[in-house]
């Protein structure tokens, strides 16, 4: 079923993104289409599922099947789709507000369920579409109109949560590193089970300070591990700018078998007969 000669452009639609100039999500879109071309699945066998927010606009910018749902619910849509159609490659695409705040509960249970799909969260530590409110990953002292002086809240740590909840593949990338993003996303798609990739994707409009991320990120200095305890210690103690594949687990993916046969419905009646 795989086609060897696919190009990134085969996965792009002709819609123009609504994103601000300089938005990190442009690079993420580019990396996703390149990664899909590398995996060799034709666009009609790929489904991109999203919720609400700047990053969640991606499905329509691809030439895959897409589902742009309600805020926070990309993961359950993706889960239902993958269980019903295990033959498809399923990507769930989200942002830090969509994925970790309103959709936070689904994140925990998607990791636990370990359905074979790839979850890419573009983390810019701000609600961009609503023009600059703090998200779960925003620093506690970041000043905004909605939370003057900062929220004072401890930031959410997506990678640790993913690991603790049972995700089978955990990685962090920086949107500006298209080569690194592409390679990691392709690996995430290939890896069985629930793969989680956090991509630091700057919001240059509401978080201009994030332009500095380019100089702060660095490749992980040690190789990936399959030991969750080691991975957790590394992730808990790194500076949040460490990129690359951090954990690649061996959990068995969620399994159900579905069939296209009609099934013997009449046989279901016998238990009611008296």
């Amino acid at each position: 079923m795989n086609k060897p000669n696919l190009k990134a452009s085969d996965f792009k639609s002709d819609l123009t993104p609504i994103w601000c100039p300089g938005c990190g999500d442009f690079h993420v879109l580019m990396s996703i289409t390149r990664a899909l071309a590398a995996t060799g699945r034709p666009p009609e066998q790929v489904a991109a599922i999203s919720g609400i927010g700047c990053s969640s606009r991606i499905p329509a910018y691809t030439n895959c099947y897409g589902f742009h749902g309600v805020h926070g619910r990309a993961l359950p849509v993706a889960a239902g789709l993958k269980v019903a159609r295990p033959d498809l490659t399923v990507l769930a695409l989200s942002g830090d507000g969509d994925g970790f705040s309103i959709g936070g509960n689904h994140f925990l249970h998607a990791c636990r369920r370990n359905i074979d799909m790839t979850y890419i969260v573009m983390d810019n530590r701000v609600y961009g579409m609503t023009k600059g409110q703090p998200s779960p990953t925003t620093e506690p002292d970041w000043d905004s109109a909605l939370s003057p002086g900062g929220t004072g809240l401890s930031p959410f740590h997506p990678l640790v949560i993913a690991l603790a909840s049972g995700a089978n593949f955990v990685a962090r990338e920086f949107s500006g590193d298209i080569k690194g993003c592409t390679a990691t996303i392709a690996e995430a798609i290939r890896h069985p089970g629930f793969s989680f990739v956090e991509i630091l994707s700057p919001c240059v409009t509401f978080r201009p300070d994030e332009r500095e991320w380019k100089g702060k990120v660095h490749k992980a200095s040690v190789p990936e591990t399959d030991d969750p305890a080691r991975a957790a210690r590394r992730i808990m103690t790194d500076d949040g700018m460490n990129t690359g594949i951090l954990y690649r687990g061996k959990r068995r993916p969620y399994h159900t078998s579905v069939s296209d046969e009609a099934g013997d419905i009449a046989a279901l009646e016998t238990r009611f007969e008296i």
Partner: protein
Amino acid sequence: MLRALNYRKLVLEYMIWVNRQIHHAGGSRMADTRSARENVSFAVVGTGGKGAITAGAILLEAAGKGGWHGLLTRSVGPQIRGGEAAALVRLATKPAFTMARDFNILVALDWKNADRFISAMPVARGGLVIADPASGSAPRAVQEASCTIAEVPIAALAKEIGGGRENMVAVGLVARLVGLEEEAVMEVIAARLGRKGRAAVDSGRACLEAGMEAAEALVPAFPLAPAPERDSPRWLITGNEAMGLGLLRGGIRFAAAYPITPATDLLEYLAPALSRIGGALLQAEDELASINMALGASFGGRPSVTATSGPGLALMMESLGLAAASETPVVVVDVMRVGPSTGIATKSEQSDLNIAVHGFHGDAPHVVLAPLGVADCLFVGQWAVHLAESLQTPVIVLSDQSIGQARVVIDRPADMQFLTRRKAFRATGEPYLRYALTADGVSPMAIPGQPGGQYTADGLTHAQSGAPSSAAKDQSEQMAKRARKIELFDFGDYWGEIEGPEEAETVILTWGSMAGAAREALGGDTRLIALRLISPLPVGQIQPALKGAKRVLLVEQNASGQLYRHIRAHMDLPGEVRQLNREGPDLIGPQEIAATLRDWSPA
């Protein structure tokens, strides 16, 4: 046989007759109970875990095998175990749609917590109460009733039998009193206990015999009239099971599930049934997830469902709007319970009509259905899938606890055939317009995997291609298209049921489960209109059905008259209009409907 000797001695030793206020001509000790009855009702009560409900279920099944009709409902407290539990059973020679108002026989395994629920199962005048003297005296309501109280040492009888259970003794008592054959009951017991081995079956038989013998002194009691000849195969089924089977017949191959009373047993029916026919059920973390899982699976081409109750439906509303906007077929079964909020989870009410019809934000055309009884759950489940798939729209089915959890003997329903098919996409080489403006409003829907059919399903206002749009033109066109597909669809004769004479002056107008009580209340000159299609309201069918009506009685189980207000938003009603409605859990019964009509003397 030691067992036999012991229990006979016990029966003689403990059986005490207590006659109370039996006002009966001729001064007989018991009410006239010799003539065979078309209807016999009984209740088995006891602390949860003692098997009162199993006892009722065994008796219903045995009667069903013998050709009688019947209905079992459960009355349970909020406790998971150790609370009160009661099986309420009505056996009849004709199909039974509602539970009896009062009970000919009440068997109490114990009287623990009886004060809390005994008012819901009053003993009929001249009725018989069987209680174990070891469990203390009967509650006041029972002592004051015009009934006979017989004391039978149920626990002691069961104890004398190795592995004996009190509820099986109760089965024997009732079986003898209503005239069920021992072997017919034994067949059911053996089927249920067979897995536990020979000893369990033997002990079941011993208990059954002990109960039947203990009841010997009380007969003749309430013998059922002979069962009519069976003219079709019979089923023993609950409303939730019938709904599940209907959904599968309709083509459902994916279900998402989050547990909630009283819908859980529907989901638990679907789980193994789906895996038998090559489908899948996914347990969700909450109802926000379950509806979205169903949408994902449906987007993938598999007809999908989730089932819930009022609180869960409230959580699903945003995503049901998405289903309407993205034109993703999905069925949501709401097995209604007493609301608002947590309400009474184990009791029935018809109070989610408002949220089902009006709960969406924005204008979101969709379909709302309600089954007219347990048997009708089968049809409505199947029809719901047909409508969702044909119209690419959400369909909400309003079942409720009173039919969902009622176990009923029914004639095997006729097979229905629908040509259920999504309008399919075929690649033409032209750019694919997922939301193309068509005459009937339904557009070809591509399924992931189909080359050339790629599109993004979207809750954003979109152009025909699916591309997001904020243009007024697209909003208007797409809004009109979605409204059109519902407006132009021919729902056929399935919109409701009409019974009784044409152009009757008195009409009962009702919906969903309340149709059963209304049907049993029908007199010679009254007509019944029971709505199965709630939204879109079938005004064009209701109006002619009301022709000649001078009195219209709206019957529904909610406090605010939700159907009445819904109808009045769309049409006028002829003549004088009255409402018989109230909140659950006190169900409106046939006698009450009939009395309301009697008291409504023609002007």
